[in-house]
């Protein structure tokens, strides 16, 4: 079965540089979520999109922005990178709203993550 695809898997940047992470959701999933996970920490919600519109916003820095495109893939743009931005960034997708059935109902499926290292 198709999974959530994230790219790149690893990224090394210098302070004050810019990085872009991409996420390709499972086909027919119209909702995308971004999470940030620091070492030894739980994933922190950044932002989500439903049908290409921002649906919820969490602890996302103003230096970060994101969008969902017409093909439902999403990109997370991070500017003026800081050392503290070094983390694993997860994208997850889920089916749209409304009643759901089957094994994937109401479940967020995660990609393998993009590991960002800021030097």
């Amino acid at each position: 079965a198709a999974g959530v695809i994230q790219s790149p898997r690893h990224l090394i940047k210098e302070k004050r540089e810019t990085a872009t992470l991409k996420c390709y959701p499972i086909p027919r999933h119209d909702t995308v979520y971004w999470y940030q996970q620091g070492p030894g920490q739980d994933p922190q919600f950044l932002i989500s999109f439903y049908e290409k519109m921002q649906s919820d916003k969490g602890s996302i820095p103003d230096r970060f922005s994101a969008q969902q495109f017409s093909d439902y893939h999403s990109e997370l743009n991070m500017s003026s990178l800081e050392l503290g931005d070094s983390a694993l960034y997860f994208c997850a997708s889920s089916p749209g709203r409304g009643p759901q059935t089957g094994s994937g109902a109401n479940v967020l499926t995660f990609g393998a993550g993009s590991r960002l290292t800021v030097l």
Partner: protein
Amino acid sequence: AQTVTQSQPEMSVQEAETVTLSCTYDTSESDYYLFWYKQPPSRQMILVIRQEAYKQQNATENRFSVNFQKAAKSFSLKISDSQLGDAAMYFCAYRSPPLRANSKLTFGKGITLSVRP
């Protein structure tokens, strides 16, 4: 806002034995979903089991089962016949119904499970 609490940072279990991981949550909603996710050293987030709050029957998935106590807002995970591959960090997570805009997953702090051979 909903909160998820995992008060045990680490646990250890002997291979083939049973272990229970605890989780409590706080919410004012009556309809919601609860999940356990496993994160092995590869750091992939893998769904272990899910529970719909409107279902009284506890969910089971092979060696994994939950004890869902809605009134007590408790959601523990039992792993039977523990295997070396079960060693991982386990996150308890809460989700509002997808009909709501804020239907993100809220995670607990996680618990690191080690399995002794």
